[in-house]
């Protein structure tokens, strides 16, 4: 990595000497710090959204498919379940907030794992980026921020779908969007940090090995009370469970003090993984 890093540094100084620097460089170097990650995020927007908008749009269909299959299919088989307050709710209403949190996790992992690895090692995109006024830390902030933004957008659409299917119970449900966004931020920073440690694409199946059990066992599909006590304690320690529990209490309209604990858990995970991402990517990109 050090070889390609120094090459990027050389290219940077060579272009600075040969041609007049484009106006955007000094502006970025001097402006408020947030402008640098934003500049990189706008690159992501051009490449991933503007170039292939149908891929982005197709992602919005997923919640409708899931909610429909559970609403008309599995929900009929299950019947009603006790929600956080103990009142019985239809199965689809119980599951929908869990799927919302899961969608945020999956979106973050989709955006912030193999993509990061490809840009880091195959495309050498970050080597080019650090030859501009952007620092490696800016790259980490931009990528995690972009993925989080995507999660927020999808969460808003998901919540709209839930409301359309009659799966929301109160105005508290609006808080599902920030809850899912925070869940997304935690998994995006964790995904970025993990990707920086991966050595080859075959390592990425390990991410699936983490995401799949989280998806299946974070009280997404059935109440925690179905499990034995020891398993409940394990589930309560899982990161996705925090998002599921947050979204569920808001969607069903029974916010409780436990929300603060879930938020704190996700905020600590985001910050810790974010700090690790910045350190690791700086090490990888510094010659």
């Amino acid at each position, binding site marked *: 990595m050090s070889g390609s890093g120094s090459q990027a540094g050389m290219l940077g100084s060579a272009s600075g000497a040969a041609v007049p620097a484009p106006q955007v460089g000094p502006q970025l170097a001097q402006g408020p710090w947030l402008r640098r990650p934003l500049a990189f995020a706008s690159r992501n927007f051009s490449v991933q959204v503007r170039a*292939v908008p*149908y*891929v982005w749009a*197709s*992602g919005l*269909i*997923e919640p409708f*498919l*899931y909610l*429909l*299959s559970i609403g*008309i*299919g*599995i929900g*009929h*088989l*299950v019947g009603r*379940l006790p929600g956080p307050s103990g009142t019985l709710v239809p*199965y689809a209403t119980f599951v929908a907030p869990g799927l919302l949190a899961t969608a945020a996790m999956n979106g973050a992992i989709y955006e912030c794992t193999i993509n990061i690895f490809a840009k880091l090692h195959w495309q050498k995109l970050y080597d080019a980026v650090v030859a501009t006024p952007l620092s490696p830390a800016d790259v980490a902030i931009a990528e995690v921020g972009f993925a989080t933004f995507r999660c927020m957008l999808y969460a808003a659409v998901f919540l709209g779908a839930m409301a359309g299917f009659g799966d929301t119970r109160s105005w508290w449900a609006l808080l599902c969007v920030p809850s899912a966004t925070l869940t997304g931020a935690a998994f995006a920073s964790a995904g970025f940090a993990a990707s920086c440690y991966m050595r080859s*694409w*075959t*390592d*990425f*199946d*390990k991410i*699936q*090995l983490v995401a*799949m*059990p989280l998806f*299946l*066992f974070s009280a997404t*599909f*059935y109440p925690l009370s*179905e*499990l034995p006590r020891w398993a409940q304690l394990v589930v309560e320690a899982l990161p996705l469970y925090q998002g599921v529990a947050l979204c569920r209490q808001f969607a069903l309209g029974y916010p409780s003090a436990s929300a603060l604990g879930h938020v704190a858990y996700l905020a600590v995970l985001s910050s810790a993984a974010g700090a690790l991402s910045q350190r690791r990517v700086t090490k990888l990109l510094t010659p």
Partner: protein
Amino acid sequence: MTALPAALRPLSYFWTVYRRTWMADLSTTFFTPLLYLASLGAGLGQLIGHGRPLPSLGGQTYLAFVAPALLAATAMQVALAQGTYEVWGARNFWSGAYRSMQASPISVGHIVSGHMLWVAVRVEIATALFLGVSSAFGTVRSPEALAALVVGPLVGLAFAAPIAAYSVTARHDQPFNLVFRLLMLPLFLFSGTFFPLSQLPSGLRWLAYLLPLWHGVELSRALYAGHFPVLAGLGHFAYLVGVAGAGLIVARSSYQRALAR
């Protein structure tokens, strides 16, 4: 190696690569079914009829109802991943393996049949692992289930061959997202996998009848339960053979055009 017929040469290439990367593959082909069945058995399966057999599920528990369907769905998933990213990678990106094969006495026809044969082998590995895992969960009630080892690769080819015909011509891998979201996901959810098709409105039900996954689900469900209706079974089988065969013919001509460039 020199004694291998030309159509098997590509197979030996893919096998060599697989021998080095099979560990990564285990998570999708072994742990995913294991976790799905464990989760269904402990959670959702208990919610539906308290884990007891239900008449609406053909007198089976929910776990026994879903397990054979997941076998067919796993075959579809593995085959679609192979028929999209792997074909595209062999044509364009990762290895450019097709180009190397073309520079040898291997013909384009051999490349198609060799790669599709490899897809069948991959799906077979996944199917066999699934069969083993699901029988450990007690969902297999008849030795006829062993015949699902034929159903898996057949379902796989019915998906991999037609999609490979497209993938070999694709310039970018972005459209594959659409294959997974707009084709695989709806089929996964609405092919009688997680609930009986009779719960669907009739329009959607007929659509499900037309698509290959439902036929694979019905076949493997009948085999797991040991009540194999001969006529309907042969019908499902013939349908899958027809789709796979037509897919191979289309893939062959598509490969001829794409690899001539």
